């Protein structure tokens, strides 16, 4: 086979594979993007019940209630609050008054059913989305920023 023709085959084959991969990526994006909402976002925007999303904010102090292996708590951005329930073992760093990111679906009654509560490896770490949400709700304090940026660091990789 002549090199020119061989190269043509390879290029065509490569393009075809690339096309298939692009199709896979696009369809996967369509179904699997999980948007991040703060409690204020949830109050403002209509979200259809059952759509998977992430909800982040601070765990309101005094809101954690246990009911068997299910935990109920309130997530707040200090402007709006959302009731969250979660069944399972909470991450070690789940604490009242600390930042949290949960993933799950909004229920018809407006509460949030979390299937995952994201663990963090560091008690002083505040997820960036949560920090931004607090800034957006005008409740950002310098203390919180310091808390988010300082503190012990570790190698996660």
């Amino acid at each position: 086979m002549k090199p020119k023709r061989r190269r043509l085959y390879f290029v065509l084959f490569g393009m075809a594979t690339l096309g298939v991969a692009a199709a896979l990526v696009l369809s996967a994006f369509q179904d699997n993007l999980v948007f991040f909402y703060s409690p204020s976002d949830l109050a403002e925007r209509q979200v259809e019940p059952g759509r998977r999303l992430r909800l982040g904010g601070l765990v309101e102090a005094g809101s954690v209630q246990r009911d068997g292996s299910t935990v109920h708590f309130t997530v707040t951005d200090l402007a709006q609050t959302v009731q969250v329930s979660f069944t399972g073992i909470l991450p070690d760093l789940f604490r009242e008054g600390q930042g949290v990111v949960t993933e799950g679906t909004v229920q018809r009654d407006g509460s949030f059913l979390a299937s995952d509560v994201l663990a963090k490896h560091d008690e002083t770490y505040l997820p960036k989305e949560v920090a931004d949400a607090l800034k957006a709700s005008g409740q950002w304090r310098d203390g919180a920023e310091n808390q988010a940026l300082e503190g012990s660091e570790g190698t996660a990789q």
Partner: protein
Amino acid sequence: MIAEIGQFALALALVVAVVQSVIPLIGAQRGNATLMMIARPAAQSLVLLVAVAYAALTYAFVVSDFSVTTVAGNSHSLKPMLYKVSGVWANHEGSMLLWVVILAVFGAAVAQFGNNLPLSLKSRALAVQGMIATAFLAFILFTSNPFLRIDPAPLDGRGLNPLLQDPGLAFHPPLLYLGYVGFSVAFSFAVAALIEGRVDAAWGRWVRPWTLAAWTFLTGGIALGSWWAYYELGWGGWWFWDPVENASFMPWLLGTALLHSAIVVEKRDTLKSWTILLAILTFSLSLLGTFIVRSGVLTSVHAFATDPTRGIFILAILVFAVGGSLVLYALRAPILKAGGLYTPVSREGGLILNNLLLALACATVLLGTLYPLLLEAMTDGRDKVSVGPPYFNATFVPIMVPLFLAMAIGPYLAWKRGNLKMISRRMIVSLIGAVATIATTFLLIPDGPTLTPFAMGMAAWLFLGTASEWADRIKLFRAPPRESLRRLQGLPRSATGMTLAHIGVAVMIIGVAGSSSWQTESIQVLRPGESVPVAGYDFRLDDVRDGTGPNYTLQRATVTVSRNGRVFAELYPETRFFPVAGQSTTEAAIRTTPFADLYAVIGEPDGSGGWTTRFYRNPLVPWIWYGALIMVAGGFLSLSDRRHRVGAPRREKSPQPAISSHPAAAE
């Protein structure tokens, strides 16, 4: 005093690194051997200086010198000695220092063992290594100096994050860095070759062992990290497609492609331009990984407190390294001439398919990892998204399936022109084995996901294809045992290494497919004495007791697992509370059997005498670690092949007749 010595050594190292990056380059340009010769002593002094700095920091950690900020922030006098030593790299400053130490070690190794390299190529490669070292030393000295003092010194340190006080994670970063940074050698050789404007088969031969070493370490490092996440985080999972995990996985994918395309460069003197590009991109992804982990731009479940200003510095290094080398590539790559001819069905064609699929798989992972950043930038921060495991399962897995299928056939293909008819005859056994595996799996576990038996069949296909190709080479069972043994002795170690690594992949596929489809999870509140059935086992919570460890208090549960009324295992899951950090960790209790892990986690008390408990039966998870171990063993075996040892004289052709059954003898 010791800390100041470390600081001084680092500053000197920066000067030496600048010398190493400039003088040899000028020498190579002018053809001045004296100037080029400076590269070697420079690389040797660099490693010495950063080692002194590293030793100084280690000393500060070991004697708990809390007047050093890094030690005060990350250590504690009560910490066990192992974690004082590993604590050196379990923080930002120290881990970047480790990064540079490993970079310098690789540079010195090239200087030491590269005696048969052309002087100009060697000095240019070392100069590029010097540039990387310069950038990272400047980064350490100007943004993350580990030797800063605080006055007055605190009485005790803040302690190391308890999650990191674990033997698995203690050795995870060094291994991972050996991989990440090891790819810098391939990068330096690629840039040096572009400056020279010449890539030949010898270039492929020089680059291969370094790439293989980096790949082997990276494989081990990723597996160790995954293992740690599995037993320490207590979620029962071992891979979460998290940005930090992806950061290490992307260089692995491209590094694997590079490993294979470098073979084509060496054996067939073609695919050169692509291989150079791969070498550049692989190390760029290592830098990107460092950036993602260090900057905290992506929300990760593995995120630690991070500092954006440091991120920007690494981003600048990244832009300079990637941009510079790609511009050089664009200018110089057209000079590289393509070599030998081959048909699409050939060893070359197979390796191109390997490269194409691995690069695509890497691209989908890259897109999924960076998409949240892109979208946020495009919508001005309004839309925040995360891309989770479903995306990666829907894109990555379909791309890997054809790769695994082709992987069984690849080693059978001859260079230049493969014979499909001959190969299909040889693959009949594998095909029968695969079909039998699919049928058996369906019969044994009829109610699992439909695709899982096919995944098992694919693993059998890969295993049998790989093993029979190896068996064919030594004529196992087809010649007298003595003849097979003689052939085995004549077989290059790199061939057996390749077989092992591919078998490791097959074993890992079994573990991945089994654990992700057949896991049983059970979460409930149990009072002491109560039990719950999980996948045919009975988990009974006996009691929960308090205790103390070296620097923590603990609550240990006793969980008795029985099957059909007979006691099968006793598990002791713990929660540990570290008063220094004010943080607790979960220690899962795992009982490993050949086919499944029984996994127990104890949570918090419910306030009325019960405890939240989580039990899993994780089928085939151990196979993932076995697979990784086999791959690493294959890598090391292949590295021990004398033909990979640059400088070793080529072995005389063995007197035995060439292995005639298939022309593709070595690799």
